[in-house]
């Protein structure tokens, strides 16, 4: 199957059709926790993409050497190593972001998106394809985080990326930056995605893409 799918497909699929959050409901912990502001979602998305790319590179390169029985243990060590690198990087060079995101950066270690991609794809495909797959998934993940973060920030703080956009007439909806707001917003986004993806809505019925 993978020999005939185009490289472009490997990259594009992570953006919507196989979007890690919207399609597979993976990585919900960070998605809900750090999206109270758009910039936090962006930082978390970038950190996750970094870990995705680096661990895919190593795991794909070593895929024929790691015995099947110990593959999960091996993947976990590799992923945890790069998460530590990313976490320390933020603490050393972007201390404010590191303080805001707090313990949710190390929680990238248990982000199902990463382990899921390694198990499903990088362990069975070449380096090039694996990197493209990871890049697509990463960007798809960033897109969801930034969207969720923007909605919550606009409605909950009246700003986006720190820039005030709503003006004085607007009373912020405090609940949006609190946990209930995260759940509700994600629920509505998923419902919207279901509506968008509904095959019976499409003009050319019967076309399965």
């Amino acid at each position, binding site marked *: 199957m993978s020999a005939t799918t185009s490289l472009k497909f490997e990259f594009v699929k992570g953006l919507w059709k196989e979007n890690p959050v919207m399609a597979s409901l993976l990585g919900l912990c960070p998605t809900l926790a750090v999206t109270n502001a758009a910039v936090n979602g962006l930082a978390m998305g970038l950190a996750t993409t970094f870990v995705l790319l680096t661990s895919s590179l190593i795991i794909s390169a070593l895929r024929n050497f790691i015995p099947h029985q110990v593959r999960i243990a091996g993947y976990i060590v590799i992923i945890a*190593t790069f998460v530590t690198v990313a976490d*320390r990087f933020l603490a050393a060079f972007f201390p404010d972001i590191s303080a805001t995101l707090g313990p949710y950066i190390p929680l990238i270690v248990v982000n199902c998106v990463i382990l899921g991609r390694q198990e499903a794809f990088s362990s069975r495909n070449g380096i090039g394809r694996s990197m493209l797959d990871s890049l697509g998934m990463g960007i798809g993940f960033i897109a969801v985080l930034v969207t969720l973060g923007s909605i919550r920030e606009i409605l909950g703080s009246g700003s986006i990326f720190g820039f005030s956009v709503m003006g004085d007439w607007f009373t912020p909806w405090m609940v949006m930056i609190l946990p209930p707001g995260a759940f509700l917003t994600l629920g509505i986004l998923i419902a919207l995605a279901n509506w968008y993806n509904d095959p019976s809505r499409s003009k050319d019925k019967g076309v399965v893409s």
Partner: protein
Amino acid sequence: MSKLPLSARMILVLTLITVLSGGILAAWDSYTKPKVEFHRLEALKAAIAEVLPAHDKYETRGSSVGNLYLASRADSDDLIGVAFMAVGSGFQGELRIMVGLTPDLSKITGIKVLEQIETPGLGTKIVVDPSNKQDPYWFPVQFKGVHTSPDMVVIKNAKPTHKHEVQGITGATISSQAVTRILNETIVGVKTAMTKHGGLES
């Protein structure tokens, strides 16, 4: 490689991965650790500077309530203030407050809430109150000059009349009272540590 028995291969590969991981992390650790420590110290210095009058250096001493930061000017060792972290339960979670006291520990020179997870828009007014356009930092700023004994008290619905009283936040009584309670409790320990010569760990 494939000629080795499975158990040997498993151990070899796992060991290799772990050793590589250890190597990368050790190198990264030595590169980043000084920077992380630098940021931590800078943040501490900035917090202390906000709660104490102008000073050039401070000495750190341990005590039963945590570190005490004794500040002085460059040319002399005369104490110009004592800063410390007061920690305790707020309304929703933990509060961490940097506090500054005069050298005789009788008055507060400043407070700064460093960590809190209070209710946004209400309890968070202990840090900053955006609804008060003239004076958004009125809550922490009012602590300057407040007397530490008798125990500090929060006044609701009226203006404070005594020197140990502070104005509470309407709609966030518990958060306001948490601040004074935590301050009162910690200051007891600070006073003990500063008066008893043996109370300070050098």
